[in-house]
C-alpha cells in the first residue's frame, strides 16, 4: 500500500481547500506523513529539525524589520509621497512597472531591495498612493488593495524569473546536480543563458498586464474622465 504515503498530500490539498488554519494543516501533514512514511518519532523530529534549521535564510526578513518600522517612524512614507508629487505623469501602474524592471535587473545580480517588508510597504506603496493623489483622485480603499496586490505580484514575478539569471544561484545549482545524478553534465552558465529570453518575456507580459489593469481600475473607481485627465 504505497498510496497511503500520499495521505499528507491529501491533507494539504483538502486543508487549504477548506480554508483551515495554515499552520494546523502543515502540522497535521507533517505528523501524518511521518507515521505513514515509516519515519518513526525520532526520524520525524530529526527531519523537521534539520530542514527547519537549513531553511533559516527565509527568516532574514526579521533582520530587516529592525529598521523597517523605525524608517516609517522617521517619515519615510511622507518623503516618498512628497517625492512622487514632483514626478509628472507617473501613475500607480507605471510605478509598479518601473519597480519591476529595477527589481529584475538587480535580481539578476542576486541583489534585493528588501522585498515586500523592506521596500514595497515602506517605499513603493506611499509612492503609488502619491501618484493616485497627483492625478487628482482620493485613493479608495479598494484601489489601494488592488495596488498592493499588483505590487506584490510584480515583486514575485520579476524575482522568480530573474534570479535564475544569476550564475551560481541555488536554482541553477539544483538543476545541475539533479541532471548530474541522471548522467547529464551541464554548465551553470548555459542554464542561466537559456533563461534570458524567458525572463525578458515575463517582465514585458507583467508590465503590459498591470498597465492595462491599472487603467481599467482607475476608470472603474474614479470615472471615465479620470483616465483622460491622468494622461495629460
Amino acid at each position, binding site marked *: 500500500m504505497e498510496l497511503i*504515503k*500520499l495521505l*499528507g498530500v491529501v491533507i*494539504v490539498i483538502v486543508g487549504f481547500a477548506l480554508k483551515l488554519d*495554515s499552520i494546523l494543516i*502543515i*502540522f497535521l501533514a*507533517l505528523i501524518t*506523513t511521518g507515521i505513514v512514511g515509516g519515519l518513526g518519532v525520532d526520524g*520525524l523530529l*530529526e*527531519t*523537521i*529539525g*534539520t*530542514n527547519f*534549521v537549513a*531553511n*533559516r*535564510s*527565509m*527568516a532574514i526578513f*526579521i*533582520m*530587516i524589520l*529592525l*529598521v*523597517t*518600522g*523605525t*524608517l*516609517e*517612524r*522617521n*517619515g*519615510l*512614507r*511622507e*518623503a516618498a509621497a512628497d517625492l512622487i508629487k514632483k514626478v509628472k505623469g507617473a501613475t500607480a501602474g507605471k510605478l509598479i512597472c518601473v519597480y519591476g524592471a529595477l527589481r529584475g535587473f538587480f535580481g539578476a545580480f542576486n*541583489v*534585493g*531591495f528588501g522585498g*515586500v517588508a523592506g521596500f514595497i510597504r515602506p517605499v513603493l*506603496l506611499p509612492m503609488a498612493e502619491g501618484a493616485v493623489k497627483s492625478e487628482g483622485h482620493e485613493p479608495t480603499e479598494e484601489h489601494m488593495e488592488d495596488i498592493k*496586490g*499588483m505590487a506584490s*505580484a510584480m515583486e514575485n514575478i520579476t524575482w*522568480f524569473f530573474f534570479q535564475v539569471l544569476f550564475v551560481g544561484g541555488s*536554482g*541553477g545549482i539544483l538543476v545541475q546536480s*539533479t*541532471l548530474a545524478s*541522471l548522467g547529464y553534465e*551541464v554548465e551553470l552558465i548555459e*542554464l542561466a543563458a537559456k*533563461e534570458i529570453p*524567458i525572463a525578458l518575456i515575463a517582465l514585458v*507580459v*507583467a508590465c503590459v*498586464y498591470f498597465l492595462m489593469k491599472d487603467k481599467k481600475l482607475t476608470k472603474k473607481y474614479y470615472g471615465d474622465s479620470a483616465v483622460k485627465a491622468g494622461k495629460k
Partner: protein
Amino acid sequence: MSNLKFIQVSDAFNTNGLNIVWIIVGLITIYAGIKNLLDEENPSRVGTAIFWCSFGVVCAFGTWLPAKVSGVLVIIMCLPPIFKKVKVGKTNAPTKEYSRAQYEKIGMKIFIPAFSVAVFSLAFAFFANISSMIAITFGVALAIIILMCYSAKENKPQVFLQDSERFLSLMGPLCMLPQLLGCLGGVFTKAGVGDVIASLVEKVVPKGNVNVGIIVFAIGMVLFTMIMGNAFAAITVMTVGIGAPFVLAYGADPVVIGMLALTCGYCGTLCTPMAANFNIVPVAILNMKDRWGVIKNQVVVACIMLVVQIGFMIALK
C-alpha cells in the same frame, strides 16, 4: 564578474558571520516573546511568548542544537498558533503627526538609510564573496547608525527593537509558514512521497512522444509545486520521475528542459497559497483584506508564461 570580487573572505568568515546573523535574528524574536510575556495588555501572554521564544531559540542556536531538539522546539512552536493563542499586545505605533514632524526635521535624507540595505547587498555581491545574509546585516547596521545620527534623542536603540517587535506581532505566526513548508518538503522527500507520484504518472502517460512528455513534465511541475509550495522540492522529484524517462531519454536537450522545468514550477509558485512567503506573508505585511489578493494578480501572468515556456521547450528541444 568574479575578477571584480577583490574582497575575498574565507569560508570560516562566512560560517561564523552567518552564525552571528542567526543569533541576532533569534534574539530579536526572543525579545518579542519576553516583551509579550510581560505585557499586561496582551490577552494571551504565555502562548505568544512560547511561540516567539521557541522560534528564537531554534533560529539562534540551531547550528549547535541536536536536530531532534530543534524538531521538538518546532513542534512546540506550532501549538500556540493552532490553538489561536498568539496575540498582539500593546503597540507603540507612531502617530501620523509624529512621523510628519520627523520628516520635516530629516527630510529627503531619510532615503539614505532606506537604500543602505540594498546598496550594501549590491556592493557586496559585486566586490566580495560574502554571504548576502551577512551583507544585509551590515546594511541594516549602517541604516541604524544613520538614523541615530539624524535624531539621536528620538531614535534610541530600544526604539528599533520595539519597532521590529511591532512588525513581527503585526505579521503574526504566518511569517513562520515558509520555514515550516521547507520542513514539510523535507519530510515528503524522506518518506518517498515523490516516488509514489512518479510511479502513478507512469501508468497514465504514454512513453515515446517527446512533445507530450514535455507538456506533462511542465504541467506536472506546476501542479506539484502548487501542492508542495516549493519548486525546489518539486524539481528533483519530477525530473527523476517524469523529465528523464519521458523526455530526456529521447534525446531532448537537458539544458533547456532541465532549466525551464524549474521556471515552469515557478508559475505554480505564483498560483498557490502553499508558497506562503511569497503569496500569503505579503498579505499580512501590507494589511490586505483578501487572503488571495496577491495570487489573483499573478494567475494570468503565470498561465501566459507556462504556455511560452512549453513553446520554448518544444521548439528548442
